[in-house]
């Protein structure tokens, strides 16, 4: 992990790329260019990119774009994937209505 630790590490200038307009996070409609720019703004971890841009914070909770964002970040930072860690996973695994989430029942109780 040491590579991402020094946030003043020189990762070069942001260079616009032809495919920057490619949508990566389908839920929150975040493009590859936005992700790359966020990295140059100092967001060196998947968690920071997520908090900064909302990648992976949509309805699907990053199930579709998680790997794609990671690959983009690794390339931009010059790291291998394993050096980059991962964004966290949160309860609930699938979206659940408030009235259901708040309705705790004993197992076997007629739901």
């Amino acid at each position, binding site marked *: 992990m040491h590579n991402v630790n020094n946030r003043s590490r020189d990762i070069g200038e942001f260079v616009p790329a032809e495919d920057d307009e490619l949508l990566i996070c389908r839920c929150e409609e975040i493009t590859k260019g936005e992700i790359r720019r966020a990295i140059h703004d100092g967001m060196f971890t998947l968690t920071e990119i997520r908090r900064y841009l909302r990648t992976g914070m949509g309805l699907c909770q990053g199930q579709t774009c998680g790997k794609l964002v990671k690959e983009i970040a690794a390339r931009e930072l010059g790291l291998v994937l394993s050096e980059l860690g991962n964004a966290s*996973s*949160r*309860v609930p*695994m699938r979206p659940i209505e408030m009235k259901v989430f708040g*309705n705790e029942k004993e197992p076997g109780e007629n739901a």
Partner: protein
Amino acid sequence: MKRYDLIVVGAGPAGLSAAVEAAKYGLKVVVFDENANPGGQLFKQVHKFFGSKEHKAKIRGFRIGSQLLEEANNLGVEVVLNATVAGLFQDKEITVRIKDSIQHYKGDAILVATGAAENMVPFKGWTLPGVIGAGAAQTMMNLHGVVPGQKILMLGSGNVGLVVSYQLLQAGCEVVALVDAAPKIGGYGVHAAKLARTGVPFYLSHTIIKAEGTDCVTGVTIAEVDKTWKTIPGTAKSLAVDTICLAVGLSPMAQLLKMAGCIMEDNPKKGGQVPVCNAYGETSLRGVFVAGDVSGVEEASSAMIEGRIAGIAAAEYLGYIDKAVLTEVAEALESALSSLRQGMFAVENRGKNIEKTDEGYVVSQHLLKKGYFQDAEVEKYPGVTRQPGVHAVIECSQNIPCNPCQDACPRHCIKIGDKITSLPVVDETANCSGCGMCVAACSGQAIFLVNEGYEAGYASITIPYEFLPLPGEGDRGWALDRGGSKVCAAEVVKVQTAPVFDHTSLLTIKVPVAMAMKARFFKEDNCHA
């Protein structure tokens, strides 16, 4: 709180196998699955599985699902469906969404068998309706009886891409192209060959430039890529398709484990982020086990064995059996597992360029590039012989873990031996009866019966056939070669269906004898053709 010996999350092949095994040793087991149907991906698999006959090879996936479920029911395993596990918390507690409530359960052991999720690849237009995952295609056609489209491009030549393409054909769709950026086919050659002979064109070293359309996909542009994955100018080509299917690999779906605090590792060979676990599938959290794709993406056959090992390990962890029993049973299962993990598609060989089989046969580059052999190449493989009467021709050229053909032949014409990944050898001294059991048994549809002495000037070829409408005896049409091109007129002389063939019909066609080693598929000649 309601407590079980073992809580299994996921009623797929791994989870059900684990539940069955644990229940055999007396554990009180519950299985939760978020889907309305159990079996995980099994119920979407209409093809026959590879592997060893002891571990459910040549059985169609959805039947394996039913079998496992029946075993689980017989052993008193509770399988709760439409039950979404919301979270895995401290002290091995889970919360489950069941109908309109949240319920809490504790397990003395927990097995997470949540499987894998499909990888996706972005390209211009990839968010348009009509771009779907290959799994979505399978779900729609094989579970819900609705085809995803009429004209389809499949991206990805791994086994999923190949198998789903074939299933699309079976559902009545046209597969316009099979595209992969890699220079060679990633999945089994036999899966590719059964597509190629129907005429599906393979575009290796190609990539999708963009999906066309405003409200939904109306076409696609593909182009060739060089060794550095850059598109080669001037190679762009437009294809009219209404559906683009993505089959670009799977990633373990390990979120529950990560959430619970399991130590995770990034392991590209396992398909991504997986929990660190021991040989029995136990994670860094005592009593929390994993099995199947969630701990590393493999075939369903491996997942079932892993599940059994984890189920037994849970039994030992909870004191239902002695360590000695675990060691003994697990050892046998591990050796079965390791035999499945051998051959040229083994994890350690991923990405390697393997030029020769274990036996020293040269692997056909034409097969890897186009999906089929050149005529001259076929005869060098040990399953392909020229004999006077009817005999099996096995066009199996890669070391893959599969051996049902060996046992299918009542006359022992086919030999693989103990090593499950060996190429099948046709014994020229044995006496083929032409029963066709091997043709129907081959999960790769790579076995044909050829009789060059069928009648003067004509040979007969018996091919496996899994399409509708099924031609009838006397029907005329075209024989297609391995690449799907028409090579000669052909007449259907025999159609065999039998319960033992399990929906693989045997179609015997008559072709000029010169075509005996060329013709491999039949296409009905209807007036609109």
